[in-house]
């Protein structure tokens, strides 16, 4: 089938402003939007720039605003996207070139929440720490995050104020806050209780809609706020 692909382009080495370019591509209904971007890049215009790697939704490289919603280009098929497809960079992060944005602010947010297990004690028998399947299940959902930034860059609070830590960072804080093995519980809750932390969420649910992993982000945010209230982290 014939597909019209409209791509928001910006190359600061050549363009003064961002603008739309239109490309005609041949596609199968089962093609991914990523396949179409490759068609353009490989056979029409090699300057088209975007990130991608695994091409099946696990590496998190290719979050884009497609037909007005944040998605992974490798997970969105033509049969669902239609024959008139628009692709833009995710919003709220500086555009570097075409669909590729500056991810540094996103990684800084991630790093700010102590996204790692803190526990240097080893059981006396030298074996694994025990954890019940029920306790393990508490962070199952948030441990699935692939750090694609689709949630954070769909959040209107983040758009207006980049100081907000954002849903992805909260998800990764939740993953450790709810892990019974962790020893930095209160310290991490303090970070979450910061004025630019978890309280800034306005429960718009954009993040939940954007998450390609289907993580219940708003629920995770609520669990963190509840934990702060219980423990008194802020």
């Amino acid at each position, binding site marked *: 089938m014939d597909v019209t692909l409209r791509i928001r382009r910006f190359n600061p080495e050549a363009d003064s402003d961002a603008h739309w370019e239109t490309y005609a591509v041949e596609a199968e209904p089962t093609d991914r939007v990523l396949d179409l971007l490759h068609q353009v890049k490989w056979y029409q215009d090699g300057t088209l*720039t975007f990130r991608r*790697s695994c*091409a099946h*939704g696990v*590496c*998190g490289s290719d979050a884009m605003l497609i037909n007005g919603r944040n998605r992974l280009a490798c997970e969105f098929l033509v049969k669902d996207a239609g024959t008139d497809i628009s692709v833009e960079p995710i919003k709220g992060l500086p555009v570097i070139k075409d669909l590729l944005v500056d991810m540094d602010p996103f990684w800084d947010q991630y790093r700010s929440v102590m996204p790692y297990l803190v526990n240097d004690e080893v059981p006396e028998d030298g074996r*694994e720490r*025990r954890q019940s399947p029920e306790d*393990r299940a508490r962070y199952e959902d948030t441990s699935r995050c692939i750090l694609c930034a689709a949630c954070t860059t769909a959040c209107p609070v983040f758009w207006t104020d980049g100081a907000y830590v954002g849903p992805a960072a909260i998800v990764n804080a939740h993953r450790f806050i709810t892990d019974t093995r962790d020893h930095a519980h209160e310290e991490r809750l303090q970070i979450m209780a910061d004025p630019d932390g978890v309280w800034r969420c306005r429960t718009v649910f954009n993040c939940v809609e954007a998450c390609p992993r289907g993580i219940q982000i708003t629920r995770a945010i609520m669990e963190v706020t509840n934990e702060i209230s219980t423990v008194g982290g802020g």
Partner: protein
Amino acid sequence: MSLVKTDAAARAAVRTHDLDAVVVGAGGAGLYAALELKQDLGPEARIGVISKLYPTRSHTGAAQGGVCAALANVEEDHWEWHWFDTVKGGDYLVDQDAAEVMCRDAIDTIIKLEHLGLPFDRTPEGLINQRRFGGHTRNYGEGPVRRSCYAADRTGHAILQTLYQQCVRADIAFYDEYQVLDLAMPDGVDGRVSGVIALQLATGEIHSFRARGVLFATGGFGKIFKVTSNAHTLTGDGVAIPWRRGLPLEDMEFFQFHPTGMYKLGFLLSEAMRGEGGILLNDAGERFMERYAPTMKDLASRDVVSRSIYQEVAAGRGIGGGDFVHLDVRHLGAQVLNEKLPDMSGFIRTYFGIEPLTDLVPIQPTAHYAMGGIPTDIDGRVLADEAGRVVPGFYAAGECACVSVHGANRLGTNSLLDILVFGRRAGIAMARELRAAPAVEPDLAAEVAVAQAVSELRGRQDGERAATIRTELQEVMFTKCGVYRTAALLEECRAEVRTLRERARRLVIDDKGCRYNTDLVEALELGFLLDCAEATVESAVARLESRGAHAREDHPERDDENWLKHTFAFRDPDGGDARLAYKLVTVTKFEPKPRVY
């Protein structure tokens, strides 16, 4: 040094970094090595991890089913059984001393990962849970054993995240989005490796990372094939670079085709789907693996199952007479599919638009894993020749390396184990060497040569597109150097790869800019792919037997008399046939026997 005089400007443009150790690649092997280096050398040590991606994009994250260790958490198991399975799975081309180290170290390594925070699935008692996986048996082949430790069906994702998280905690310096293009080897193959030269994607600048030790953990090169489970970025950069420099590549003819790739798409439906009870069906609805592997059936080794699928297809029993068969997981039930195999079930729904609970899933063998690579010893030290001479300052681990623990066919889950065990060991060994290593001697000629090559490619005005040549390469390799091979096919393949290499000398790119020039990167990656393909086909032409993943229709039997040895291929600098040398397999305990599943 004459190069330096000819291009002082290029030299002036190169930015330099002085580090103690450089790790190239930020998957499991690279990250684990970096953690060990930091821990062993102390907080003052300057450790840099360079990756062409953000670390969490690394392909370790795509690994699904699990990582094996004989923890015996759910039933009796012993690391010696795991050792035997690894040797047999590798069709006896495994160096048994190396596999012994891997299977014994596996237990501590997995426990250590749990301590680092890995979210393993748990037994009711709270221990790490374990499940069955292809080729893993109890009591030396009697039947399947539950040995694979897992985090749902995203074990690799959990490993990558956990190691990266701990690297963040350890404040390790990352150089994200740098494409490494050469090794610093100022004295050639007889001297030390003293750094790497890389292209910074954000700026287009050439950077020289000078360091007393370099570890390559750059992953595989599945993109030489048309249908592959591998990411677009798996272009064998780290495998090709030492090959260009005159260092050998080991056992490159052995490339694993995983039986259950998603039809046409190539990416994987985990072996865990069969580990949990999924079966393969032909067009008649027959569970054909019962004929090929009466004991292990659908859980026989991957090479065996992939060949069985090809034979079914060749006999006209593919689905509708086509080139694929069905994976049947309908009987596993909603709970197993949604809780133990959620990502796999999601892939099937997203990409095929079908429901695994009620529909049969079309699958075909897909190019998955390079058993061969940069030869190393059991501590990751790179070997310069078949006699075992070590290249000072140079280490390799993970899929880009060949220890050899996988021999002619890797067992499922052993890749994750390999990156963990040998990434860690390489980090420890490197830290030890660095304490006494001499000061760095830079490779000024290489710095200039890289800058010139990049500038020449960027400036060329006409030629062919990289994508055209890459597509042809992938087709040729898949059809002529794939699951089944013959002398005639391989000779054709060799000739065609050479022609493609010639054509690739005249690549042109559209993007002449500096900032994130991914057009340029793809052209450079094509060069690496061509090198990997060349080493693969050169090694395959010469091996006149069938063993593991290397199946020769014209030499259908394994030949231990003549071929119980590793291939060491050296590139011919003039573009002719590779020079091949051989090294005997280390056999310590398990005498080669016929391989029956």
